[in-house]
Structure formats: structure tokens, C-alpha cells
């Protein structure tokens, strides 16, 4: 990393301002005005529209994986999803996914 201290603080400060501007945007500008119903309808789909597209590349091309994607990545992803889908519980999916993916490392530590 070759930034000066003030450049790092500048990045952090501008990230903070930019992120706030995005998050506040419609909350501040629109106030009590209603959003048109078609847009409101579309927005109800935002989580299922954004998150799967964010997940897919992370599973297929994991950022930290030295040897690229393995069966373990795919299996952990499928089992996490199936568990959360079947139980309708976020926590169960995460717990089983983490146990499966990080289990071998944790066992090695003992």
C-alpha cells in the first residue's frame, strides 16, 4: 500500500460521506411523498434481486482461494442454501455452512 496517511484518511472520509448520501437519498428527498406503485412493487424484490447476483461470483470465483473454486466451496454453498431454505432459518444455514467449510481447519487446531 503506497498511500500517505492523509490520503488514507481522505478515502475513509469520502467513503463515509458517499455511503451516507446513498443510504439517505430517498429518505431525505422524498419525505412524505408516495413512490409510484410500480416502483414500490419493484422495490419489494430488491433483496432477492441484489443478493443472489452478489453471491454467485463469490461462490464461483472465491476472492481468497489460491487454487480457485473447489468442491468444498460448492458443497458448502449448496448445503448452506438447502438448510436455510428447508428450515426457513438464517442461523441454521450459516451455522452449518461455517461448520462444513471451516470445520477441517478448526479440527486441525485441536
Amino acid at each position, binding site marked *: *500500500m503506497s498511500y500517505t496517511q492523509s490520503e*488514507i*484518511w*481522505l*478515502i*475513509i472520509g469520502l*467513503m*463515509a460521506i*458517499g*455511503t*451516507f448520501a*446513498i*443510504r*439517505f*437519498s*430517498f*429518505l*431525505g428527498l*422524498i*419525505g412524505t411523498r*408516495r413512490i409510484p406503485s410500480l416502483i*414500490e412493487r*419493484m*422495490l*419489494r*424484490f*430488491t*433483496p*432477492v*434481486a*441484489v*443478493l*443472489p*447476483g*452478489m*453471491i*454467485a461470483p*463469490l461462490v464461483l470465483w*472465491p476472492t*481468497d*482461494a489460491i487454487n480457485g473454486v473447489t468442491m468444498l*466451496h460448492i458443497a*458448502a*454453498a449448496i448445503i*448452506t*442454501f*438447502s*438448510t*436455510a*431454505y428447508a428450515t426457513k*432459518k*438464517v*442461523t441454521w*444455514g*450459516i451455522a452449518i*455452512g*461455517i461448520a462444513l*467449510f*471451516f470445520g477441517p*481447519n478448526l479440527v486441525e487446531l485441536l
Partner: protein
Amino acid sequence: MTVNTTKSTFGSGVKDGLPYIVVVIPFATLFGVVAVEAGLTIAQTFSFSLLVIAGASQFAALQLMLENAGIVVVLMAALAVNLRMAMYAAALAPHLGSAPFWQRMLIGFLNFDQSYLLSVTRYEDQPLMSVAEKVMYFLGVALLIAPLWCLFTYIGAIFGSSVPATWEASFILPVAFLAMVAPMLKSPAHLAAAFVSIVVALVLTDLPSGSGLLIAAFCAMATGVTVETLLESKA
């Protein structure tokens, strides 16, 4: 509106946020570790989490800083990751738009994945909630998660380099998101939207700085609404 109901609404926000601690704590700790290893000071690492409170974009910014990208590129890419939150703001606006300005400022500052997801779900399940109750519920979720995010970033920064890189700890991110999305796939319209999101995001993955994801999200939303409308007109 009595003080008691808003208090208990705040409490249910805290309670509903509890399962997400499992995600927030390791992820915050990891950010602390990675940021200090990358060359940020502990004060910078902590301030990053305190002022930005957006995991994925913080990791994206860090990754680009490690590659010594230009400051403008770092900012554009990392903020593009956060653009989805403008949609969150728009989804919250019909519910919270009539709250006092300072409360909306606070909600804007704390408008992240978990606080948005839980709140919108709750508002739709209980349409009779007052605006004050809606605000308290939102703050209940956010004021549980945000301080933990900062605290564990700090702990991660201090205990720094003890997590071996071979663990690929960042794989916690897709695992957590998969578990979050699965229970939301309640109807054929939601399934269709998720499918389109995945396909378009993968096809457009080489577009710069997250813009492919924004296009994918837009196509997926349009798909969701279309499928829902078609199914309704059949019924």
C-alpha cells in the same frame, strides 16, 4: 402511542437482530485483521467501520487499496457496491418518510443490509405499526448490530494476524448471504427474480466496479414484478 409500546418495539428489533450477530462478529473481526495487515493503523481501521458501516464495500475498498489503485477508482468501486442501499432507502421511504428529519438522518446513517431487511419484513407483516414504532424497531436492529460491528473491528485490528490466510475466512460472506436469501424465496416470482439476478450478474461479471450487479438487480426486479403480475391475472 405510549412509551411502553415504542420501548417494546425497540426490544423486538434487538431480538430479531440477534441471529445476525453470528455473521457480524466474525466478519467485523476479519475486517479488522485484514485492514491492519494491509497497512491501515488501528485508528483508521476502527474509523472505517464506525463511519461507513458497510462490510462488503469496506472489503472492496481495502482490496483496491492493496492493489494501489487511484483514489477515485477506490471510491467509485467501493461506493458502487453500496448503490443497492439507495433502493433500500426508497423501500423504507413509504414507511419512514414522515418521521422527523433528524430521525431520518440517523436511519440513513444506519441503513444497512440487516436493518433494512428485518424492518421492511416487519413493516409488511404488521401494517398497523405507527411511524414512531417503525422507527424504534429499525433502531433496535441497528443499535444492536452497528456497535458490535465497530467493537469487533477493533478487536480484530488489535489481535491482528492470528487468522491464517489459508482459511479463506472471506468465504463467510457468500455463506451468510445464501442463508439470508433462501428463506426469502417464498413465491415463483421471487425464485424467478433470484434466477435472473444470478444469470445476468455472471454474464456481466467483467463490467467495471459492480455495475454488472446493478444491471442484474434491475432485470431481476422487472422479472419479479412481471411474473407476479402474470400469476395474479391468471388467478
